[in-house]
């Protein structure tokens, strides 16, 4: 095991995790809003924001699914050491991390059950950049409308139709995060 794996965790876990959670909560409560999320320094290709989300939300109780370049030994070792989350297949995952293309098809993830819609996966989508303009968003957390650059529109419209079931998305790039819960209605600009 490479000694680098041991690095990149929170320096002061309770405090940094508290700040990180507030950023993540603000992001999901206000779809389209871009928040700063930092503290973790995960191995490439994982972004600082995605790594911080993993440290803040994942532990041995949360199976994680890695896709594409993110499913590499340094990332697996880093998650194993800092978080202890089991790495699993898509269907069992509570969190999935990767780029948009790698995460397809989105039907492979758990969307919850009618009795327990919370038993659904949260997707952490790594992006090149987060853009504030793009698709038009409406729904809870948004006063009138908001806008947000999205990799595509159809998948999120399909996801919103599943409500109260469905997936919830975080988008990460560098130390920035934004989110799209299943309640948000998306329209192409």
């Amino acid at each position, binding site marked *: 095991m490479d000694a680098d794996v041991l690095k990149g965790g929170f320096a002061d876990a*309770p*405090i940094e995790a508290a700040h990180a959670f*507030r950023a993540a*909560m603000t992001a999901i409560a206000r779809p389209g809003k871009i928040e700063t999320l930092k503290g973790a320094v995960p191995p490439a290709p994982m972004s600082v924001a995605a790594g911080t989300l993993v440290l803040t939300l994942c532990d041995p109780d949360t199976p994680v699914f890695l896709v594409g370049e993110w499913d590499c030994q340094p990332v697996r070792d880093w998650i194993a050491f800092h978080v202890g989350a089991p790495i699993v297949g898509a269907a069992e995952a509570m969190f999935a991390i990767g780029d948009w293309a790698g995460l397809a098809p989105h039907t492979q993830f758990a969307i919850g059950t009618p009795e327990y819609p919370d038993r659904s996966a949260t997707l952490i989508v790594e992006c090149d950049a987060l853009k504030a303009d793009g698709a038009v968003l409406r729904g*809870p957390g948004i006063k009138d409308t908001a806008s947000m650059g999205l990799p595509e529109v159809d998948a999120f419209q399909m996801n919103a139709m599943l*409500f*109260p079931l469905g997936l919830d998305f975080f988008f990460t790039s560098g130390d920035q995060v934004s989110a799209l819960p*299943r*309640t948000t209605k998306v329209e192409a600009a």
Partner: protein
Amino acid sequence: MSDYNFAYLDEQTKRMIRRAILKGLAIPGYQVPFASREMPMPYGWGTGGVQVSAATLTPDDTFKVIDQGADDTTNAVSIRKFFEKTAGVATTEEASAASVIQTRHRIPEDELREDQILVYQVPIPEPLRFLEPSEVETRKMHSLEEYGLMHVKLYEDIAKHGAIATSYAYPVKVEGRYVMDPSPIPKFDNPKMEMAGIQLFGAGREQRIYALPPYCQVVSLDFEDFPFEASKADHACDMCGATDSYLDEVIMDDAGNRMFVCSDTDYCASRRKAGHVGAQGTPFEETAA
């Protein structure tokens, strides 16, 4: 090593609560089960709200606690002291100065801003519980959106009393989907739930967390011919003269004398500081306790 972990709870517990809060915000009005911990206070004293606050607070926050609108009652004082000791956060009694407000059974009179979070203490999170005691059944009713029973209950109110007699914990429908218990706030506060701040609900004994994102549609259940009415005592505050605030009735003596005062102590005090005087009030003095 005599210090508490920041905000009392261990990190794994906070992660579990945080995941529940995020799912709660993604499914507004749905009650997310969580593994509620024993807290150093009895059930019924806000163990759910305290756990949600502990998972939400950062050291930069200013924390306010109200119990039925008051900052100076036992429950509010003890929870405020708890977080002063375990999280070292600044505390305040001013609603406008607080970033996180934990509340038992009231929403502050001052409108909340976007940067404020309201945490409710919830005794019974299931709005259908008194109509259907089985959790298996109520869960199925929520999944099938089968809320007829709740309307029958409100109808029976009208049949018996001539009006919807439910005056607190008045059921609401969130985003046209989940019927939710707003916790035992007076129905006067129901319209305020469509607010700019984030609202989080914690029920410790019942092990449920639910949430409302900002600007979420929250509709109080009613009938076309018996519309919802956000009622309050038909009186002005006797201390500050406010006519728009929710009032508590205080019995003054054995002779039947009583007075009405704002339930929100911060609202009342700030009005008195601004020079408003009610029918039985005295001008505000800085030294007055």
